[in-house]
């Protein structure tokens, strides 16, 4: 598969000279169409990495390529941002217009698209996040989850190949979280958009195809959710946790029970425990 994001020995420091490195020679490749979750403690470099993916930050050393475009090349910046769109934590900071559809139209208007095309993209974007019935609403009348979906639609309207979401559910309640997660999954499965989801929520990360765990600016683990969460001790030592399903299996295993740790989902975990109780 084609790669959409590639970092080569990516290094970044917020200070100059480089006393503390936020990213330490990080090399990762993300194929197009993948749903990748990025985990890491506060200060692990997650957001710094995300900001390299649409050229908000530029490498202090090494390089970052988006669909083959080098982010250090200033002439490519608009193409890069159109390819990889970004959604932030606080929905209130991302909405600029007083009517939902106008907000979604902001980027396509700036791209200088014809009216008809803008209309088509706005409708399509709102439909893809399930907010088509609210196109005439005022954003401040919406719930947090709805506002965040409008922010995502604003990015979708640029028709990006990749969306980077930096803790998009941190400020939302469980309903809002579910709304965002199913929106992300549908954009990934039905529209083939690459998703980079930065999160502290282990259960959200468990839904991804692949998890990257960062610790102190380096890549600690890279694998499928099952592979990653089996490393219970490594995860804990990196200041992270694992879903309660895996934690329960891990605790039982520590006591000598013959259970495997790959029961990530509730049903899988229950199946393993059922077999264990029957044995």
């Amino acid at each position, binding site marked *: 598969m084609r790669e959409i994001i590639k970092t080569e020995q990516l290094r970044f420091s917020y200070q100059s000279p480089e006393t503390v490195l936020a990213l330490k020679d990080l090399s990762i490749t993300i194929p197009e169409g993948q749903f990748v979750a990025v985990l890491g403690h506060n200060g*692990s470099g997650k957001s710094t990495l995300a900001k390299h993916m649409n050229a908000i930050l530029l490498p202090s050393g090494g390089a970052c390529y988006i669909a083959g475009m080098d982010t250090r090349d200033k002439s490519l910046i608009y193409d890069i941002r159109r390819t990889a769109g970004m959604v932030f*934590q606080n929905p209130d900071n991302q909405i600029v217009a007083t009517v939902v559809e106008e907000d979604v139209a902001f980027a396509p208007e700036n791209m200088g698209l014809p009216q008809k095309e803008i209309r088509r993209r706005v409708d399509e974007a709102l439909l893809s996040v399930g907010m088509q019935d609210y196109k005439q609403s005022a954003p401040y009348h919406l719930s947090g*989850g709805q506002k965040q979906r409008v922010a995502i639609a604003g990015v979708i309207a640029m028709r990006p190949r990749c969306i980077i979401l930096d803790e998009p559910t941190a400020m939302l309640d469980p*309903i809002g979280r579910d709304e965002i997660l199913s929106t992300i999954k549908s954009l990934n499965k039905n529209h083939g958009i690459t998703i980079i989801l930065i999160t502290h929520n282990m259960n959200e990360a468990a839904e991804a195809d692949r998890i990257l765990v960062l610790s102190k600016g380096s890549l600690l683990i890279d694998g499928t959710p099952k592979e990653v969460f089996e490393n219970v001790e490594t995860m804990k030592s990196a200041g992270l946790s694992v879903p309660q399903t895996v934690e329960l299996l891990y605790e039982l295993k520590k*006591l000598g029970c013959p259970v495997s740790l790959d029961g990530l989902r*509730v049903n899988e975990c229950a199946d393993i425990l059922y077999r264990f*109780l029957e044995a």
Partner: protein
Amino acid sequence: MVKSIEVKNLTHVYSAGTPFETTALSDISFSVEKGEFVGIIGHTGSGKSTLIQHFNGLKKPTSGTVMIEGEDVWANPRDVKKFRFRAGMVFQYPEYQLFEETVFLDIAFGPKNMGLKQSEIEERVLEAVEFVGLSPDILEKSPFDLSGGQKRRAAIAGVIAMRPGILILDEPTAGLDPRGRDDILLHISEYHKKMNATVLLVTHSMEDIAKTVNRITVLSRGKILTDGTPKEVFSEPELLKSAGLSVPQVTRVFLRLRELGAPVDTTVYTVEQAVKQLSALRGGKV
């Protein structure tokens, strides 16, 4: 004994008499005993924030009464301010409210407003810093030089320094990594125990709440949907679901085990309890 909080028939209406009129709280009666650790959960717009803002006089009831430590908050509107010290409130993302030149001055802001002596203020600042697990070395730093987690703790220390008999925290762990989350909850539990304080924790995290509180109050559409021990509340997964909430993941595993036909007791809400029960089911032979 006098109750910490006693709310009688509390109704709060926003924008009354306009087309935007909304009833945020509708005829709520609720009380909290001294020393209880209560979790308040509910979806966005359920009335949680409106409710807690009545406990320190930030909101005035449209009707009904709110008694704090036996005193009606609005008996004398001029005296409302004193309830800000008795019911200390930590808002969401409190680190955005740090403003002083040094961490010390920031934490001292509350006690200073209480009109305490300098020596007493210093004592309280040191005590508060210890409660939240920060090193006294940071007191002379600018709050803006701290890490995110340290800022959050410094902001909580600023409320603790007022030694409130009632400590109210709105999503104190939002945005923190798992270790930071556990750490803050541990320090809050310590304040609860050592000071025999009443603590109210507003959160969206069922796992956090299951680990820490003795009692859970669930709000939905401005009313109390259910109220009880974590065991009681989490034994009603359908009711919680109807309010847009859920039970902890480990409880869902047990509900599924029951569906499969295993003879489990589904009133389990922490991993520890789950391990205990499973090992008992195997006759302690695990």
